[in-house]
């Protein structure tokens, strides 16, 4: 971690993370829905919506969880460099 996260930016970051996560989940859900819709449900729209909704919900839930317990730390995977810097 080159630069520390400032406390005022922490929330922002949280929100970013949250949003990103939500979008990802939504996208995932969408994708699953699409897949389901295409392959299983004969191109009906509802799996897509459903999947998206699921994604949204998951994201929201995550966000909330994150915001509720702010003292939990999030770790990231860092590539190991030769010099041993984290």
């Amino acid at each position, binding site marked *: 971690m080159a630069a520390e996260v400032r*406390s*005022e930016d922490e*929330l*922002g970051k949280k929100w970013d993370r949250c949003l990103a996560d939500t979008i990802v989940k939504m996208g995932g859900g969408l994708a699953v829905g699409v897949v389901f819709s295409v392959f299983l449900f004969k191109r009906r729209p509802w799996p897509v919506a459903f999947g998206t909704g699921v994604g949204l919900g998951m994201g929201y839930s995550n966000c*909330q969880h994150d*915001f*509720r317990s*702010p003292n939990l730390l999030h770790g990231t995977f860092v590539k190991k460099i030769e010099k041993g810097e984290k």
Partner: protein
Amino acid sequence: MWRASRRVPSKIKCLGQGRPTSGRPQHPCRNYAEEGADKSAKAAQARLQAVGTLPTETSSGGVAKTVLTATLAVGAGVGGLTVYAKTSPEFRKTLEGNVPYAREYLRAVLDRGPKMPDLGLGGVVDKAKGMVGMGKKKEEQPGSFLPKLSQSKSDEEEKQRKAAADTAAQAIAYGVDQPYPAEARESSPTPPVKYIPTYERGKEKDEESSSIAVSVGTDEPMPVAAKEPSAAHRESAVKAPAKEKKPVGVEKPEVTAAAAIAASMDEPMPPESKSEPKAKKAEEKPATKKKAMKEKAEDTAAAAVAAGMDLPMPAKAMTTSGEGVPKKHTSKEENLVETPEDTAAAAVAAALDQPFATEARETPMRTPEEVQAKLLEKEIDDLAERAATVAIIQHELEDLKRTATSAIHAQEEAAHATKMHSEQIKHAMDEDSSGPLGKEEQWQAVTGAKEAKVDALKLAEASATAARENLEKARAVIKEGKSSLSEPDQEILVAEEELGKLAYELETAVGKVSKAQADAQVMQEYQDLVEQGRKQFKKELESIMPDVRLGGWRGKLSEDELNSLIAHAHRRIEQLQSQLAEQQLLEKSRMDDALARQRTEDEKEALALLKRELERQKQELALAQDLRIAQARDQYETEMRTQLRRQAAAHSEHLQDVLRVQEQELGSKHQTEMHDALMDERDRYQVKLNEAMARLRGVEAAIEGRADIEREARKAQELLIACETLKRLINTGNEEATSWEERRVPLSREVNTVKEAAGDSKFFQTLLDSVPPQAMEAGVFPEDSLRQRFLRVKRVCRRVAMIDETGGTLFQFFVSYLQSLLLVDAGRRSLPPGKEVDPKKLDTFTLLSYAEHSLENGDLEQAARFMNQLKGEPRKVASDWLEEARLTLEARQAAQALAAAAAAVGLGTLV
């Protein structure tokens, strides 16, 4: 045309490039990007254009062409002329004469490289040698050659480039000293003129003079040819373009000496020559001759002395004249050897009026060897003088002898002739004894004899005068010799003796002649008398018989004439008889008179003879006496010399001893004095040194004290500066930063500087320690940055104002956000002065508001305090900011304290 089709000339601007130049048709710019597209069309267009604009193109190129052509032509012309000038010198000359600057140009172009040294000097020298016919003395040639060479160098290059023989011929003509090359080479053994220094030149002279001395000593007549060129050679050597360092004045006596020698050489050679008898000249000659002789004699004397001293002196004068004095002797006593040379050369130089400083003469302190050398010198001098005089005298004597003998011969001849003449007269006078020979012939014989007599007399007279003159000369020389020398030499006395003898002989011969002349005179008188008588008789006869002439009998005489003649004859006879008787008587008396006269004359003659004899005897006695005196003197002289030498040696030894003792005494005295003086000096020096040292120490102390103060002051200044720097840094941060985030600068360096500047002070150490380490490492935000940051923090805080530490749901977040939107920031609230703030009434928004306000006023501390009151999520959000603010505040506090302290210290040092 072809060019146009290829490219557009650069001069012509194409359309589209800047402003088109007026009056010139433009080409369309070739756009190479479009080339591929419509190349052919463009090309065609360009070609058309080109065709249309051909004349202008050529006209502009034409100027260049003309210029080029002209240049080429001129260059060709010049080049051709140069080449021709190189080949033909006359042409070159004309060029140089007529064209300005042609010479310099041609010189620069044609004459390259160094000419002079490569002219083939060796070849020239060989030529010169060949021309003169000399195989040796190579080193002389360049010596005399070079000046001529430098002169010819300044000539035109034409001459240079011509045969080197010209310069060689020039040089030979007047450079080399060879006026009589061939003769001198063959005859004279002496080497030609060399450029030698003065000292050696004297030696060279000795060589020549010694050669002459050889000739003189051994009485060998040297060939005329050799002597003449040598003398002339000498004169030419004198006249030659001299590179010698001798003064001119020296050359004159040389010339006179040479002339004298030459003259003296010339004299004995033609013995019959009649030299002008001038006594003055006679005296001059001996003088100069003596000097010249002296030189030669000195060498012989020196050689004799050296030989007498058993020194291995090479036979320089006695044998060949080839080996000259310049040869160095390898004897032990070198100074002794050199002094003869020195003296010889010195005497020569003295004769030539040149100051010659030999070492032997100049040293004040003489060693016994030197004393001996001096004595030797004197001896040699004496001997030389004597030898010289003797030689001269002998020479003169020989001259005299010759002239005297010749004179005597002449006198005898004259006497004989006179006698002959008188006899002839007598014979002629005698009428009876004529015989078959006619009177005429007799009288002719008489006249012949008379003429012979006259001639002989003249000759005798001349020779007598010559002999007498020589006699005088010799006498003068002897006199001079006797007077100049300290004691007369034996040889001189002998010479004197000879002189006397010769004089005597001469006088006797002259006497004989005079006697003969007297006889002749008597005869002459007799003849005259007879003649007179005859004339008388003739007259009488003529008076009586005028027709009859004696000896002219023509035919027969008449009786009367005969009778008268007989009568006259008788009368005459009687008269004559009486006369005869008278005469007889007279004769008797006259005879007596004559006898008496004769007696007196005889007496006189006898007296004269006696006198002469006496003179001779006297002379002989005197000579013997002188001889004896000379011998005795020699003896005494030698003895005295030896004694003097002994005394001199003893004296020098004594002197040496005395001097040694004195030296020691003086030395010791000097030592003590020196020592004392040295001690004094040292003490004085020590005192001064101490003084100086004390002063120096005082100065040092003062300086050090001052230095301490200075140091303290400097330290304080440094400290102050460092603290100020720290403070400033804390206040301003990194000025080059673009955003507030980067304006952090680690304080460690400045803090370290302050630490260093502070030194040992505990106070400062404590203060420095109070600076938070994080500030040191990471740095501290300046207030401006914090202020800027605060805006964001405030915004975020406002948005999460409703959420507490435990976190919140998204909905709460959303609501809080809504609240923040709805709550309007009514401006920055300021704390009412003096009023206290109730912490319970503070909520996020007010706090933020207060904080902002205080920040605006620059009160970070207050802002931090307010921020510290935040709770819940806003607190978390603002925690970093707060931390930073705290750091900043701490650092600032520390820095301010430090600065204050430093200022205090600094102020203290100012005093």
